C-alpha cells in the first residue's frame, strides 16, 4: 500500500520527452539530454558514446543522429558539479554561466575527441590511401560540428534573447566552421591529385554558386520578406483580437448597462466614469501592469488615483485628479493619503453638487502637497459640533500626528479646499 501511494505521487509528473540539454553541455548536449531522460549520470552516457566510438565510429554516427533529430531543450540532469552549473538562477545569471561554461567544456571535449580519434586511428589499421584522407575528413567534421552548434545557439538565443554582443562571436564561429569545411574539401581535392585543376574547379564552382544566387536570390529575398510580413500581420491580428476582447467585455457591457439605466442620470454618469477610467488605464498603462488591480499601490500618484477612483465609484461624483511628480509611499505619506481620501469623501458627499471635485497632488523635493477642493456650499469648521470627529480626527488629527499640517478653508466663491502638507520620511 505505501508503495502504491508513493507511486501515485510520483506518477503525475508530465511525460518526459527527450531533449538535448542546453545547460552544461560539452558538444551538442546529446549525452546530457539522454542522461536526463534515462535518469543516469551523464558520465556513463558519455563513456558509452566514447566506447561506441571505438566500434568503427558508431558512437560518432549515433551522436550525430541524435544531434540532428532531437530538439534542443532546457534541463537534463542536475549536474554533479553544482558550483559551475547553478542553473536555477535568474535568466541573466544563467545566460552568462551557460555562455562561459561550454567554452571550458568544449576544450575538454575537443581534447578528448582528439585523444579518442588518435587511439582510433592507431587501433584501426587503415591502408595508406585511406589514411591520407583522414585529416581532411576530420577538418570537414569539425567545421560541420561548429556550424551545427552555432545553429543550436541561434535557436536558443531566440528563446532567451541573448544580447547583441554575441552576434560577432556567432559570426566568427560560422566563418571558422565554413573555413574548416573548405580547407577539408580542398584537402581532399589536393589528395586526389587534381590539384592542378583546383583553380578551374573553384572557378566553375564559384560560377555555379553565383548563377544559383542570381536565380534564387529574388525568390529568397521575397520569401523572407513575406515571412516577416506574415509574422507582423499575425502579431497585429493578435493585438486586434485582444482589443476586441477588451472592448467586448467591458465597453459593450457598460454601454448595455447605460442603456438600461438611461433614466437614472447619476448611475449613468457613474458607469460612464468607471468605464472611462478602466479604458484609459488599459490604453495608457505600460504593458504588464494591467493585472495588479488588487495590489496595494506603492507610489503616491497611484495611491491618489486609486482613492479618487474608489470615492468616485462610491459616491458618483466626478473627481478630477492632477498629479505632479511622484514618489514612493512611506508611512507618513500613506497617512496623508488616508487623510486625502477622507477629504475626497467629504467633498463628494457635501460638495459634489457644484461640479467635479478637484484633487491636486504635488511632490516637490521632500514636500508632498495635496489639495482637495469642491465647489459645494462650503462649510465652517467652527460651526461643526465638537463631537463630529470626521474632519478633526481623520484629516487634521491624522496629519498632525504624522508630522504634517492640514488646512481647511472656504474658497471665496463657494466651495471648500483642504490642503494637506507633509514632509516625506528620511530614507
Amino acid at each position, binding site marked *: 500500500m505505501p508503495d502504491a501511494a508513493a507511486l501515485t505521487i510520483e506518477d503525475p509528473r508530465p511525460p518526459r520527452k527527450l531533449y538535448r540539454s542546453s545547460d552544461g553541455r560539452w558538444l551538442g548536449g546529446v549525452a546530457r539530454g539522454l542522461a536526463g531522460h534515462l535518469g543516469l549520470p551523464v558520465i556513463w552516457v558519455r563513456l558509452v558514446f566514447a566506447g561506441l566510438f571505438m566500434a568503427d565510429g558508431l558512437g560518432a554516427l549515433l551522436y550525430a543522429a541524435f544531434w540532428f533529430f532531437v530538439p534542443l531543450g532546457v534541463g537534463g540532469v542536475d549536474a554533479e558539479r553544482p558550483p559551475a552549473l547553478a542553473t536555477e538562477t535568474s535568466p541573466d545569471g544563467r545566460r552568462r554561466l551557460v555562455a562561459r561554461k561550454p567554452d571550458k567544456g568544449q576544450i575538454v571535449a575537443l581534447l578528448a575527441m582528439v585523444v579518442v580519434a588518435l587511439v582510433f586511428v592507431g587501433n584501426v589499421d587503415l591502408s595508406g590511401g585511406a589514411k591520407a584522407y583522414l585529416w581532411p575528413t576530420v577538418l570537414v567534421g569539425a567545421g560541420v560540428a561548429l556550424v551545427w552548434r552555432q545553429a543550436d545557439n541561434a535557436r536558443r538565443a531566440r528563446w532567451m534573447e541573448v544580447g547583441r554582443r554575441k552576434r560577432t562571436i556567432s559570426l566568427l564561429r560560422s566563418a571558422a566552421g565554413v573555413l574548416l569545411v573548405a580547407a577539408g574539401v580542398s584537402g581532399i581535392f589536393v589528395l586526389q591529385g587534381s590539384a592542378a585543376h583546383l583553380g578551374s574547379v573553384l572557378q566553375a564552382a564559384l560560377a555555379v554558386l553565383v548563377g544559383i544566387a542570381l536565380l534564387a536570390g529574388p525568390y529568397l529575398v521575397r520569401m523572407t520578406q513575406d515571412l516577416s510580413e506574415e509574422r507582423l500581420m499575425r502579431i497585429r491580428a493578435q493585438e486586434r483580437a485582444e482589443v476586441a476582447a477588451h472592448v467586448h467585455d467591458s465597453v459593450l457591457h457598460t454601454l448595455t448597462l447605460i442603456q438600461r439605466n438611461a433614466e437614472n442620470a447619476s448611475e449613468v454618469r457613474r458607469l460612464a466614469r468607471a468605464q472611462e477610467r478602466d479604458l*484609459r*488605464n488599459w490604453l*495608457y*498603462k*505600460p504593458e504588464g501592469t494591467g493585472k495588479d488591480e488588487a495590489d496595494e499601490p506603492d507610489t503616491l500618484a497611484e495611491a491618489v*488615483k486609486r482613492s479618487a477612483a474608489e470615492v468616485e465609484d462610491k459616491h458618483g461624483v*466626478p473627481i*478630477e485628479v*492632477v*498629479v*505632479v*511628480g511622484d514618489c514612493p509611499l512611506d508611512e507618513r505619506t500613506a497617512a496623508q493619503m488616508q487623510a486625502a481620501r477622507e477629504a475626497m469623501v467629504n467633498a463628494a458627499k457635501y460638495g459634489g453638487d457644484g*461640479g*467635479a471635485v*478637484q484633487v*491636486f497632488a*504635488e511632490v*516637490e523635493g521632500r514636500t508632498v502637497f495635496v*489639495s482637495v*477642493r469642491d465647489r459645494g456650499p462650503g462649510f465652517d469648521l467652527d460651526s461643526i459640533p465638537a463631537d463630529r470627529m470626521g474632519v478633526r480626527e481623520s484629516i487634521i488629527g491624522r496629519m498632525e500626528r504624522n508630522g504634517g499640517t492640514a488646512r481647511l478653508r472656504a*474658497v*471665496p*466663491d463657494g466651495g471648500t*479646499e483642504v490642503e494637506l502638507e507633509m514632509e516625506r520620511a528620511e530614507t
Partner: protein
Amino acid sequence: MSDASEPTGAAGAVGPDAGATGAGAAGAGSAEDPAASAPGRRVRVVLVDDHRMFRTGVQAEIGQTERTGVEVVGEAADVDQAVTVITATRPEVVLLDVHLPGGGGVEVLRRCSPLMADPEQPVRFLALSVSDAAEDVIGVIRGGARGYVTKTITGTDLVDSVFRVQDGDAVFSPRLAGFVLDAFASTDAPPVDEDLDRLTQREREVLRLIARGYAYKEIAKQLFISVKTVESHVSAVLRKLQLSNRHELTRWATARRLV
C-alpha cells in the same frame, strides 16, 4: 447703390475686430465679467474632429449664436479637410482634436502656421481632446495651439475658453497645468536658455492654482493680482512651453504617459 453697400461692407469687415478688441478691453477692465457674457461679441469657429457625433454635440452646445456668440462656420473630419476649411473660412478660433486621420492635430497646426502668423487676422487654435497622454497634449501646444481643454469641459466653460483664445490669451486646463509643472519641474539637465527653460515663482504659483481647479478670477483674488496679470503669466508660460528648446521636454513627454 455703391454708397449703400460701402458702409455695410466696411462695417462687416471691421465690426468683428472692433467688437473683439472692445470686449477684450472691457473684460480686462472689469474682472468680474466673464468674457463670454460681453454683449454683442461674436467669434467664428471651425470644429475639427473626426467624430461626427462629437462635432454635432459641440455644435448643439455652443453653436446657438444668439445665446453664446459663437458661430460655427465650418467643420472638418481630417487633416486635409481641416486645412481647406480653415483656409477658406478664416475663422478666429479653431477647436482642434489631437487625434485626426492624416497626421493628427500637429499636422494641421504645421500646415496652418502661415495663417497663425497672419498679423491682420490670426487664426488661433484651441486643442480639445479626449486624450490624456502627455505627449499628445504637449505636442499640439508646442505646435502652436493656444491652449488645451478636455472634452469633459462644460459648454459654458468651452465658450469662455474660445473667447479667451480669440483674445490671444492662453487656456490651460488643470490637467495641462499639471503636465507643464511636471515637465518644467524635472530639470536634471542644465537649461539651454535660462529665461525660457525655467518658470518664475509666480508662474509656478499660477499654474499650481490652475491645476487645483481655480478660475482666473479666483487666482487673481488668491494672489492679490489682477486678472490681467494672471493672463499675462499664463501667456508667458505658454510661450516658454512653445519656445523652450530643451530636449528635456520632448524626452519627458515621450517617456511618460501620465493619465
